[in-house]
């Protein structure tokens, strides 16, 4: 099976969820994603900033009160070959970037409404913070900070719709983050999506 992501660390068979390639180990129960009525699926396509992308894999984190899907997409850009799409039922954020270390001299208040501060100027507000109860994978996955799920997931925003997805480890020095751009769910269109015959559109 040909790998499409430059940073590919895991490839699961799209038919049987068996591991085809991997530089990371995940438990057997994490192979495959439970059905959650997602219309987006592997093979779905779309456009972000006028560039076409194709979904190739997904990490689904189940939290106590919510979930997050991290879709991995190939993106027609040599600088940022992976497009991360962080999706919940209430928001969607795009990041044409890779996870980067959380910068020194920055701080996070791990409460909803708390601040994430970079130096004196950049300030975002946390709108979701939760540790994953379980993580599931499907398709091809790019490098992800903690595939074992031992982190606290933080989603922060500012008023210019910049979003920050942060995987916080016990030690902030071992924390990674992803700059993203939040969009209204209704404004995002995917093609080659899944249809549900039992549901009228």
């Amino acid at each position, binding site marked *: 099976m040909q790998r499409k992501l430059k940073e590919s660390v895991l490839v699961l068979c799209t038919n*049987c*969820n068996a591991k085809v390639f991997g530089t990371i180990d995940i438990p057997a129960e994490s192979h495959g994603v439970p059905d959650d009525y*997602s*219309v987006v699926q592997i093979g779905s396509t779309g456009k972000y900033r006028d560039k076409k992308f194709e979904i190739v894999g997904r990490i689904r984190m*189940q939290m*106590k*009160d919510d979930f997050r899907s991290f879709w991995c997409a190939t993106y027609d850009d040599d600088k940022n070959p992976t497009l991360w799409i962080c999706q919940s039922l*209430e928001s969607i954020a795009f990041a044409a970037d890779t996870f980067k270390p959380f910068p020194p001299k920055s701080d996070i208040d791990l409460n*909803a409404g708390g601040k994430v501060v970079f130096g004196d100027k950049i300030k975002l507000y946390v709108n979701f913070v939760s540790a994953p109860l379980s993580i599931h994978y499907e398709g091809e996955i790019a490098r992800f900070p903690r595939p074992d799920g031992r982190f606290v997931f933080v989603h922060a925003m500012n008023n210019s719709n910049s979003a920050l997805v942060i995987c916080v480890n016990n030690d902030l020095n071992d924390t990674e983050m992803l700059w993203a751009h939040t969009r209204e769910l209704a404004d995002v269109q995917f093609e080659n999506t899944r249809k549900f015959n039992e*549901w009228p559109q």
Partner: protein
Amino acid sequence: MSGPSKTLSYECPKCKTVNVPKGKALTVALTCKSCGVYFCPHSNINDKFSEKRDPAIPIGSRGTFEGKTYEVLGYVLKLEKKHRYKWSEYFLFSPYHGIAFLSEYGGNWNFLTPYANHLWLSDRKALQDPYAMGQAFKLYAKYNAAVLYAQGEFFNDTIAVTEDSKHWEHIAPPYILTFEQSNTVTGSFLGKYISPKDVASAFKMPAGKLPKKDGMGYTEPILGNFTPVALVAVSIVALMAAFVINIVFNNMTTEESVYQNTYTQLELKDSVKMISTPSFELQKTTAVSVQVTAPLDNDWFYAEYSLINEVTGEEQEFSGEISYYRGTDSDGSWSEGSKTTDMFLSSVPAGKYHLDIYPEFSGKNNYFHIAVYRNAAFSGNIWLLAIGLCVFPAIYFTYRHYKEVARWEDSDYSPYETDDD
């Protein structure tokens, strides 16, 4: 293509019935289909309720809002802890359109969907008057709530999220912007008032099965489906159009003299005491102005006039008096009245006319000057129209004020003074 998916099922912690959630992996809390106990499979929480209320819209019903079909997955009866009022929330879902809520209080409904486009927080507080949809929303309620009863499925632990969160509701009728914040999540929803009739229509059910409407909903539009700004905009455009029409007609028509002459008392025939003018032509239906001037000094002049259509014989009688007096007293010199009068005949049909004049002289003055104009200028209509155009907005805004006071009666944040203040 995705790999094989896993079918989820959850065993009730109380009666051990196996429940297959309709929302599949999205469902994180549900009530058992057999015993009704509420439980969260991921966190082993379960609860029972002190109150039971069947939802007016049954779980599993499908309703279409703005062309989008949702299914009712859950129902929650909530209690506001301070003022102890209860309201219902229906949790809706569509794989294509996501989640939505229908909230109902006193038979008044709002339809809400997630709103991610606004930053709500400033130092862990909701903004006082957030701006969204191009307008400022006013804080209507800030409260803590409890869940009295739940039925169906939920994509969060609705009891914990409700009870651990602070809730803010801002309104810009018919819109509502809600915000809730717990230690782990902030969430925002944008909604709009929906009439009971439209709710019933969406679910294809009789309106009589919904709770009876009791009073005005706090996001209910006051009169019709429009905003005050829209009414002001329409009224301003209408007024501008009226003045433009007025200017155009004033510029298009020029006042033209069709006859003028000076007459003396000597010209009165002994028997009839009347003067007849020569014929003059009005080429189209028009306003006619008859101006009479007399060299009066502490004197008066009165005349009756007949404007006669020489073809049809139609006659219009009118009269006019002029008087001018002056003098001096302890305050100095004074004068009153005028030496001229202008009689205005509205919408005189086209045709050939003459005037019969029946003057009465005082004996002091013995002559007068008369001038007849067609296309006479006038401005009375524009002011009447302007007043007319302001009538509906004036009634609306007066009515609106009283309704707004009523709308905010139940709020701790009313911008209007109340008897309690």
